[in-house]
């Protein structure tokens, strides 16, 4: 019984932590703030790639 209760407690903590962290990321738009910082590096990378550009 105590093993089950322990597992339940751990699941609850894990679920609660997951919710707390992801909800903060969601609400403060941290995911988009992060990806908007990544975009310039990707653009720089595309600009330096060799391409066969012709009509």
């Amino acid at each position, binding site marked *: 019984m105590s093993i089950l209760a322990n597992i339940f407690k751990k699941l609850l903590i894990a679920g609660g932590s997951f919710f707390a962290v992801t909800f903060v990321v969601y609400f403060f738009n941290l995911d988009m703030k992060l990806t908007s910082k990544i*975009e310039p590096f990707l653009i720089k990378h595309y600009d330096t790639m060799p*391409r*066969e550009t012709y009509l």
Partner: protein
Amino acid sequence: MVVKAENYNRPGDKELGVLFDGGKVRKRREWRGLKDTLYDYGRWLHIMGILAKFIAKPRNIKAMFRYRWMANYLATPHMIDKFTMGLRDEPLRIVHTSMDFVVYDVASTLDNIFRGDRRTGNDVEYSKKCVLSDENAMTAFMMGFPTVHAILREVPCMFVANLLTQYSSTHYLDVAQQAGIPGDVCPMPEAEAGTSIDDDFAVLGCCAVQVNTTCDGSLMGNGIIAKRLEREYGIPTFQLIAPMRHREPDVQKYAAEDMKKAIAFVEEHSGEKWDWTAYFESAKRVNDATRKRMAWLEINSTPYPQFVGAPFSLYNDTNYMGNCGRSKLFPPVDAKLLKLAQQGYEAKRMMAPEYRHRCIVWGVQPQYCIDMLNWMVHCWGVVPLTDMLSMINTKMIAEEDTPENRDQAYYDMAWLNENMIMRNRTHGGYKVLVNELWEFCDMMHADMVMMWEHMSCKALDGMHGQFEEQARERGIHLVWVCHDLCDPRVYTRQAIRNQFNDYMRTVMREEPLDPSIETLPDENAW
């Protein structure tokens, strides 16, 4: 005409302008009250799950670093936030149900593209069973090929990319113009041509089918793209030509014959035979989707419209054109959307405290990239009941497998192709473009038409005077809003909104419902 909500109380943020701070992304997500915020959070997790599953594949990571347009997909959750701004209850659930499924569908398309792409996944056997198709192509000619994949290669590169970020096309426009293509052509096919010139399309497929959609610019782009496909990559390309005067009875035989030739072309290059059982199953789903679309429109013709705006148009585009009855996944989503719309209607659910005008959106539309339609509801209480691209086929096609219906099927596929999104209105003469608009105004009880005037589009230019004259005769408020589709350097988002603002203030003498979003600092936003 004015409908006021009884006891309207939108929980959460009252002024939507607080979400904007002039940056690339929003300051924070919207507080919609506990119930709807938790619902939106759950859907955000779902979207993140789709994206995580997609990027977990090495070939997709490789593609991320190979193709410039892939960077736009970093903004996927941001796009959903644009479409859900200010929504609660059923309208919020309708947008999530439709757009989250569109996200799933596009992610699957991308996954399929990179599986066959010679530069990334390079699955040669899979690639041999893929047929490339145009962005604005009905996939009706693929309805009887259940084992061959129709790949609308330009959709994720250009069209969807533009939903995600407003500057997604500008690099390709510059490339096309550096190659000598004039800047006054429609930026959509020009950006596609630029993608091909820049060698930034994925390369796959046993063959390609191009269509003469929807304009001279589109034909120009197709020529450039076909040249590279055929001469460099060895991918044979068929030109499926729909007649311009598509409502005339004497062109239908020609259109059906051309459809037959397109099918024979796919058979020849894919090695697969046309399957009539699969075709008629798809035809049943096409009819089912048509019935559902008509039911949504019927609800929108009441005082309590539910499924409106860019998501209505985008979901119809995906379902009618990209899917065309081929996937079994769409009908359950259609049914869920109808159930939500009916629930919302019965509960008299409104998206704003007041609906002052009932509006039909007409002309070549850029509303996807700026999410103008949702803004119109919240800022001015103007409800976009439907739009030009959503007013497509309403005819039921033959769905029982009989010898007569097999002959009829070519005419039906040709009909679907002719009445494809955009072409069915921009070509076919003034009856389909001007006269039917007034019929739709009657049907939807609209008192206002927002006319998108795409400055680089030649298709609608000659009708300008007729629209003005006839709207005046009918007492319809006609708001002209000029734009340059996916080139925000010519018309910024605020320059577009200002035209609507000016009309509402000076002609209608009205004040905004939410003044905080009349002017938005989103020129640099995704």
